[in-house]
C-alpha cells in the first residue's frame, strides 16, 4: 500500500471512529431527544451543527470548481447560499422557535389550522430532501472510489452503514454532536490546502487576503490581474467580470438561492434545538460565521486552482506541457474519465484554449478542482488524505440532517399528526427509527441507480423551497390575517408555476424530448434560467395568497391571537402581567 493510501485510510476511518464514539455517548432516549436534541443545544454548538448540516458535498466539492470556471458569475452561489441566513435570523427562526414545535409541517399546520396545508408541506419537504440526498450519496460513492479505490457500490454501502449507526441511534441528539465533529473535520480539510496554496502563490497564508495580493514570483502583478490576463489570452472570458446570463438572471438566481436556503426544512429544523428565542437569533449568526469561513475561502480556492491548472498546462506562452510528461494527478483523473485529452493537432503537446476547434482538453470536470487541487499544487500526501475525509464529512453530515427531516415529517406529521394520533411516545420513537432506516435504503438505492434527472433536481429542490415553503412561513408570521385557504392556494400556485417553467425547458420530469420550449436561452422568460425561477415562483405565491385572502376573508380570531403570541419571545402569561 502506498503512503497516500495509508494516510487516507487513517484519516477516513479515524474520523468514522470519532463519529461512532460520539453517537454512543449521545444516544436518544425520548422523542424530544430524537427530534430536537432535548432542546438544550447552545448557540455556538448549534451554529457549528448548522454549518455541517448546510455545507454538503456541493459546497465542499463542487462550488469552488464552479467559481473557478465561472469567475465573477459564480458569485451568485456565494451570495445566494449565505444571504439566506440573514432572512432566517430575522424573518423565520425566532418566531418558529417561540412557537416551540418539532417540525416545519407542524408549524404550518398550527398556523394555517389545516391538515391539507400540513400534507402539502410534507410533500414539498420529502421531494426537496430526497433529491438532495441522492447528491450526497453520489458524493460518498465518488470519494470512496477515487481515494480508496474500492468499488463505487461498496463505498456507498459503507457510507450508508455509518449514517445509519449514528442517525438512527442518536436521532437529532446524535446528529447534532456528530455534525459538530464533522464541521471541524471539513473546515480543516478545506482551509489547510487553501492556506498552503495561497502561501505558495502570493506569500500570504490567509486565502481571503492572498486572492487580493500580488504574486510571489517577484513580478509585482496582482494575482487576479494575472488570471484575467492568462484566461483572456487563451480566448476565455475575463475572470473577474464574466457574468452568468444577463443581470436580471443573476439577480433572480441569487434571490432564488437566498429564499430557497431560508425555506429548506432540514436547516430550519435545527433552530428548534436551541433553548430560547434569543439563542435562535444568535445561532443563525454563529452558523453564518462558520459557513463564511468556508465560503470566503472558496473564491480563493477557485481562482488559485484555475491559475495553477493554466500554469501547469502552459507554464509560459507557447511552451505547452508535453503530454507524455504529464504529472501523476493528470493520469489519475484521466482514469476516472473526468479529465480528457485529445491531441487534435498531433504535436504531442497539450493546448487548452476557448476555441472548441482547437481545444485539446476536451473534458475538465468542475467537480475535480477541489479534490485535485492539492495534488496540482504538489502538497504533501497527508493534506490530500485530509481532503478525502473532509469531503466525506460534508456529504455524511448533510445526508443525516436530511434523513432526520424526512423521517420526522413521516413519523411525526403524517403518522402521529394525521393517520394515527394515538401513537404512544415510545412507538413514535420506534416509528421514527424504522422510517429513517427505510429512508437510508431508498437513498442508497437512488445513489446506486441515480435517476437521469438527479443533477436537475437539486435546482428543483431550491425552486420548491423558495416558491412554496418560504412564502408560506413568512406570510404566516408577518400577516396576522393570512388564512389557511389563501396559503394553500399560494403554495400550490408558487410550486406549480416553478415546476411548469422548469419542465417546459428541461423536459417533464427531466425526460429528454418532452420539453416543449427547449432548453435554449432565447426562449427563457426575460432571460431567466430555469434554475433561477424560484424567485418568480415566490412572487406568484405571495400575489395569489393575497388575492385569495381579499376574496375569502381573514384567519379566525384565535389564529390571529396565536400569531400575536409567537411574535414576542416571552410566554403569553408573562406578557399579560406586563
Amino acid at each position, binding site marked *: 500500500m502506498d503512503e497516500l493510501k495509508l494516510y487516507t485510510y487513517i484519516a477516513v476511518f479515524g474520523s468514522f471512529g470519532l463519529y461512532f464514539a460520539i453517537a454512543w455517548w449521545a444516544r436518544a432516549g425520548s422523542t424530544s431527544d430524537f427530534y430536537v436534541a432535548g432542546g438544550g443545544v447552545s448557540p455556538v454548538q448549534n451554529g457549528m451543527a448548522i454549518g455541517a448540516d448546510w455545507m454538503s458535498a456541493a459546497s465542499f466539492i463542487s462550488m469552488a470548481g464552479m467559481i473557478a470556471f465561472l469567475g*465573477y458569475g459564480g458569485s451568485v452561489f456565494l451570495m445566494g447560499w449565505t444571504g439566506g441566513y440573514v432572512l432566517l435570523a430575522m424573518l423565520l427562526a425566532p418566531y418558529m422557535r417561540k412557537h416551540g414545535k418539532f417540525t416545519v409541517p407542524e408549524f404550518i399546520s398550527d398556523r394555517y389550522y389545516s391538515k391539507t396545508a400540513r400534507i402539502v408541506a410534507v410533500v414539498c419537504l420529502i421531494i426537496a430532501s430526497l433529491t438532495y440526498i441522492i447528491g450526497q450519496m453520489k458524493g460518498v460513492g465518488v470519494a470512496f472510489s477515487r481515494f480508496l479505490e474500492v468499488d463505487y457500490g461498496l463505498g456507498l454501502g459503507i457510507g450508508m452503514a455509518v449514517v445509519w449507526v449514528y442517525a438512527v441511534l442518536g436521532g437529532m441528539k446524535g446528529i447534532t454532536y456528530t455534525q459538530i465533529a464533522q464541521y471541524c473535520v471539513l473546515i480543516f480539510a478545506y482551509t489547510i490546502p487553501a492556506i498552503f496554496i495561497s502561501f505558495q502563490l502570493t506569500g500570504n497564508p490567509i486565502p481571503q487576503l492572498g486572492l487580493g495580493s500580488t504574486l510571489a514570483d517577484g513580478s509585482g502583478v496582482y494575482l487576479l490581474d494575472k488570471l484575467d490576463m492568462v484566461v483572456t489570452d487563451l480566448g476565455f472570458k475575463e475572470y473577474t467580470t464574466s457574468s452568468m446570463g444577463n443581470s436580471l438572471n443573476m439577480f433572480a438566481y441569487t434571490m432564488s438561492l437566498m429564499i430557497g436556503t431560508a425555506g429548506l426544512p432540514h436547516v430550519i429544523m435545527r433552530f428548534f434545538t436551541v433553548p430560547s428565542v*434569543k439563542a435562535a437569533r444568535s445561532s443563525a449568526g454563529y452558523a*453564518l460565521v462558520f459557513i463564511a469561513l468556508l465560503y470566503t475561502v472558496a473564491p480563493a480556492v477557485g481562482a488559485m486552482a484555475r491559475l495553477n491548472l493554466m500554469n501547469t498546462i502552459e507554464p509560459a506562452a507557447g511552451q505547452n506541457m508535453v503530454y507524455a510528461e504529464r504529472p501523476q494527478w493528470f493520469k489519475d483523473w484521466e482514469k476516472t474519465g473526468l479529465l480528457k485529452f485529445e491531441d487534435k493537432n498531433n504535436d504531442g503537446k497539450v493546448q487548452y484554449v476557448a476555441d472548441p476547434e482547437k481545444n485539446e482538453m476536451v473534458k475538465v470536470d468542475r467537480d475535480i478542482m477541489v479534490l485535485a487541487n492539492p495534488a496540482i499544487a504538489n502538497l504533501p500526501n497527508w493534506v490530500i488524505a485530509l481532503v478525502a475525509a473532509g469531503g466525506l464529512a460534508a456529504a455524511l453530515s448533510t445526508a443525516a440532517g436530511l434523513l432526520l427531516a424526512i423521517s420526522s415529517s413521516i413519523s411525526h406529521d403524517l403518522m402521529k399528526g394525521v393517520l394515527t394520533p394515538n401513537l404512544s411516545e415510545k412507538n413514535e420513537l420506534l416509528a421514527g427509527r424504522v422510517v429513517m432506516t427505510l429512508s437510508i435504503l431508498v437513498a442508497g438505492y437512488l445513489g446506486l441507480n441515480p435517476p437521469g434527472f438527479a443533477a436537475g433536481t437539486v435546482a428543483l429542490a431550491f425552486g420548491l423551497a423558495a416558491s412554496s415553503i418560504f412564502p408560506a412561513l413568512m406570510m404566516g408570521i408577518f400577516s396576522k390575517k393570512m388564512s389557511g385557504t389563501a396559503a394553500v392556494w399560494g403554495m400550490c400556485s408558487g410550486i406549480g408555476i416553478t415546476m411548469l417553467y422548469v419542465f417546459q425547458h428541461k423536459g417533464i420530469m427531466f425526460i429528454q424530448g418532452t420539453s416543449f420550449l427547449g432548453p435554449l436561452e432565447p426562449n427563457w422568460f426575460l432571460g431567466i434560467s430555469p434554475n433561477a425561477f424560484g424567485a418568480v415562483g415566490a412572487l406568484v405565491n405571495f400575489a395569489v395568497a393575497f388575492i385569495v385572502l381579499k376574496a375569502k376573508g381573514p384567519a379566525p380570531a384565535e389564529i390571529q391571537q396565536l400569531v400575536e403570541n409567537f411574535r414576542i419571545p416571552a410566554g403569553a402569561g408573562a406578557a399579560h402581567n406586563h
Partner: protein
Amino acid sequence: MGSNQSYWQKNLRLIMICLLIWFIVSFGFGLLLVEPLNNFSLGGYKLGFWFAQQGSIYTFVALIFWYSSKMNKLDKEHGVEE
C-alpha cells in the same frame, strides 16, 4: 397589549433597516452597480467583484449579530425576554 404592539413595530423597523443593507451590499454593490464599482480597487480586488465574493458575506455576518444584540435590548425594554 399596547406595549407588544410598539415592540413589534420597532422590530419591523429594525428588520427593514437590516434588509435594506442586506440588499444594498449584495444585489446593489455585488450585482447592479458592479461595473461602476469595478473602476475602484481594494488591493488586487476590483471593488464590485470584492463585494460579490467577499464583502457581502462579511456584511451578512455583522448584520445578524447587530440585529440580535438590538433585539436583546428591545426584549428587555419591553419586558418580553424569556
